[in-house]
């Protein structure tokens, strides 16, 4: 399973390095989203700093949808999906490999967006540990859910519109917990709030969806 996961992740990342779709299209899109929110909130810094945590995660979610669509578009062209099924690769390995490749791309996007939050909104980080743990757990959860629903939508003709419809409601806990954890980390949350419960929620969410993906990706791939 791990060998297959490395093989698939390596292939997806090599394709991304070659095509630079995430770097040249998805990343600018995510930064533009942040900038537009900044314009919408007006010239006053206070509301921007207060909203920074939530807007960061909204931008991550939108960017994640595009990254997942791109990941499964690779398997829709020229019969490559059948090629992947015929290869005999362990479906759990394919799931973990595709999720890992999406996660790596999300990490790059999150670094850019975090810089954008500091630059556009003037946010200051008070707890780097909370920021990093939230990003790690959120990335794992989003990549797992994205890969799962990407496979589910892959065989459907209207997959481009179906994926956000399926994906965004399911990842609402990541949006909520990530925002609250970041609010604590940025010192913009309600007084007395702690990041730990939100981080635990994100870790459990990621663990559950990674396990569900490992167990169900095979049947999903066959049914898609």
């Amino acid at each position: 399973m791990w060998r297959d996961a490395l093989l698939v992740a390596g292939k997806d990342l090599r394709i991304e390095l070659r095509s630079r779709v995430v770097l040249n299209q998805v990343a600018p899109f995510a930064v533009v989203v942040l900038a537009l929110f900044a314009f919408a909130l007006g010239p006053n810094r206070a509301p921007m700093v207060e909203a920074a945590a939530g807007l960061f995660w909204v931008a991550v979610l939108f960017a994640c949808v595009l990254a997942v669509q791109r990941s499964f578009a690779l398997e829709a062209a020229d019969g490559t999906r059948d090629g992947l099924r015929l290869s005999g690769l362990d479906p759990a390995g394919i799931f973990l490999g595709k999720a890992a490749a999406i996660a790596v791309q999300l990490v790059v996007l999150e670094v850019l967006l975090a810089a954008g939050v500091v630059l556009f909104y003037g946010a200051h980080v008070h707890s780097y540990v909370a920021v990093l743990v939230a990003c790690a757990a959120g990335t794992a959860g989003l990549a797992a859910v994205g890969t799962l629903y990407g496979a589910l939508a892959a065989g459907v003709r209207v997959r481009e519109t179906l994926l956000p419809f399926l994906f965004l409601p399911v990842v609402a806990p990541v949006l909520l917990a990530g925002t609250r954890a970041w609010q604590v980390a940025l010192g913009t949350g309600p007084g007395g709030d702690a990041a730990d419960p939100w981080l635990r929620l994100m870790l459990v969410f990621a663990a559950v969806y990674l396990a569900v993906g490992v167990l169900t990706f095979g049947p999903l791939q066959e049914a898609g």
Partner: protein
Amino acid sequence: MASAVSLRAAVALTGRFPVLAGIDLTVDPGEILVLEGPNGAGKTSVLRACAGLLPVTSGHAVVLGHDLRRHPSAVRRQVGMLGHAAALYNELNVVENVRFAVRAAGGSVDGIDAALDRLGLVGRLRRTTVGRLSAGQRRRVALAVLVARHPALWLLDEPHAALDAGARALLGDIVTGAVAGGATVLIASHEPEASLPLAHRAVTLAGGRVTDERTLERRVPDPGQIESTRVVGAVHVA
């Protein structure tokens, strides 16, 4: 000796439509079988069912000793399929595509260079991304994957499409070599003049069933030269 492919009253559905409607087909190990028939006859469906890509919902279906109704995916690593699409990643170059396909199938990468040489994929072509290749060149890359993988069962769907005369002759050599190495080959084709010279037997399909069967006197072509084939026996099945 057990058959390489054994389908008896096998039914496969696409939606609610029976693309295989109780087909009976047996293919011996080391045999080259050509599937003929009009569009929609079920040729591609037979190949996809044998690859475990199309579920067989009733009847008997055993390929390379694997029961397709119980474990449809178990046979896949032993099968190599050349479909209408080349199943290649446009952003990867020729070597990267072949290496990924071979490693994914659990094969050895040692034979990749030889396979690429054999298909004429040499020099700068090897480092060219597949998205920039012509249809015929993509077909050659897909064939190189099969040559490098050495599957036990070759499933070739219109394999001569997009190939020039030289590549067609080379395909004949490759198929002959695969059978000499113990493989079994099923070819779905609309080009009898190209496919029948390679075959031991031809079956005609219509409506997802076998309607006619012919044993051919196969004359193994010299390398690069496909000779004519004579029909020596015919059986009208339905």
